[in-house]
């Protein structure tokens, strides 16, 4: 092949790429936080005594899990303006990521909650705590601990999914790298660099997860 690698454009674009990493990171973290809220809230509603609420959650989960993220983000960005709701790309991306990740999180966390023995709930009730207190103070933490690996895998996937937000011009790593590529036409160099950056971002995310695991989920088990 008469192709020589030339990283100059990538190096020139490095400041931009680093800012874009931060953009990706912001999307990932905000989307993840929203996903956690939706996940936990969804699980609570899913256990509600009101049948309608339970079915709404199931419907939400199946609708979101079974359709592509691109379609979801397009819908929020292009179709909601028809109903008068106009959001900028970054909020759109965060909401879409949160909704998408939340739907998966609901299923994962539900598994965790179901794995906690009924005795824990009963012990809490017998101590005079309300159902909501029992869930918040007693069930939630051990439940999150049991499904922590699945949940973090899902969030790594969510981190990588931020790249799709480039389709609606959100500021993140993939879109910036594609600009550098389309200015310089150095695809291999750019893709290679971006891969390394994504790997780095995922690694940082994994470290964060490990930190929280050590901080909150390190109580001894039998």
């Amino acid at each position, binding site marked *: 092949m008469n192709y020589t690698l030339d990283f100059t454009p990538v190096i020139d674009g490095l400041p931009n790429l680093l800012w874009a990493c931060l953009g990706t990171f912001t999307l990932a973290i905000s989307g993840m936080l929203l996903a956690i809220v939706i996940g936990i809230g969804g699980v609570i509603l899913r256990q509600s005594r009101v049948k309608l609420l339970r079915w709404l959650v199931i419907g939400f989960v199946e609708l979101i899990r079974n359709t592509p993220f691109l379609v979801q983000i397009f819908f929020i960005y292009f179709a909601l303006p028809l109903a008068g709701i106009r959001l900028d790309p970054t909020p759109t991306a965060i909401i879409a990521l949160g909704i998408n990740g939340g739907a998966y999180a609901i299923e994962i966390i539900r598994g965790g909650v179901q794995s906690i023995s009924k005795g*824990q709930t*009963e012990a809490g009730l*017998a101590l*005079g*705590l309300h159902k909501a*207190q029992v869930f918040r103070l007693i069930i939630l933490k*051990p439940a999150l601990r049991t499904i922590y690996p699945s949940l973090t895998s899902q969030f790594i996937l969510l981190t990588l999914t931020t790249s799709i937000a480039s389709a609606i011009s959100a500021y993140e790593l993939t879109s910036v790298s594609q600009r550098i590529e389309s200015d310089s036409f150095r695809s291999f160099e750019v893709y290679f660099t971006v891969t390394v950056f994504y790997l780095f971002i995922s690694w940082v995310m994994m470290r964060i997860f490990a930190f929280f695991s050590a901080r909150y989920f390190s109580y001894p*088990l039998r």
Partner: protein
Amino acid sequence: MISLSGVGKWYGAFQALDSINMSVAKGEKIVLCGPSGSGKSTLIRCINHLEAYQKGDIHVGGVRLGHGANAIDAVRREVGMVFQQFNLFPHLTVLQNCMLAPMRALGLNKAQAEDRARTLLERVKISEQSEKYPAQLSGGQQQRVAIARALCMRPKAMLFDEPTSALDPEMVKEVLDTMIALAEEGMTMICVTHEMGFARQVADRIVFMASGVIVEEAPPAEFFSNPKHERTRKFLGEVLGRH
């Protein structure tokens, strides 16, 4: 203090309790025994409404625990419960296990709750372990924490559901000793157990259940020496006969 009249309880079509009448005075200690599946756990769980019942009435400390009544929380604060499987909260230290409910359900502040927890951990002789997590304790220690945790609510009565049957033989004694001390201080207790030595020593009455009904009810001396029903005799033969 606690009274049940005509209580009936069904799981679907299966009747687990059938017209149970029982009354426990303040300071009384009742031991509940009977074959597996006879409804002992169900009965005790109805008293603090972990199970709903469909017929009859249960009164606890003057409050009527009716069908769908709202008084459940009040009753649960007055009645402590200790489970066979301890059910300590694995993500909280021993001290936190004991402080949680007083703070959240009684509204004590942190200092008060800690004070109370330490006093009671002292009483079950486990104060050195207060910073450990449940998984780091032996079964006997865990069960004593569970007792302290229930006592932190200053209950008027305690329910025990086979508190020693998940324990290693050597650890049984330390838990029984704790329960005996509690009994001696005058706590009202209903206790499901097969530890007949304990029953003999502390029970005011022994209640024998089979197939959801109370078959026989008598003070220990009479219960062991002179069981009236065939079913009771058979049961005692099996539980006592092995040693």
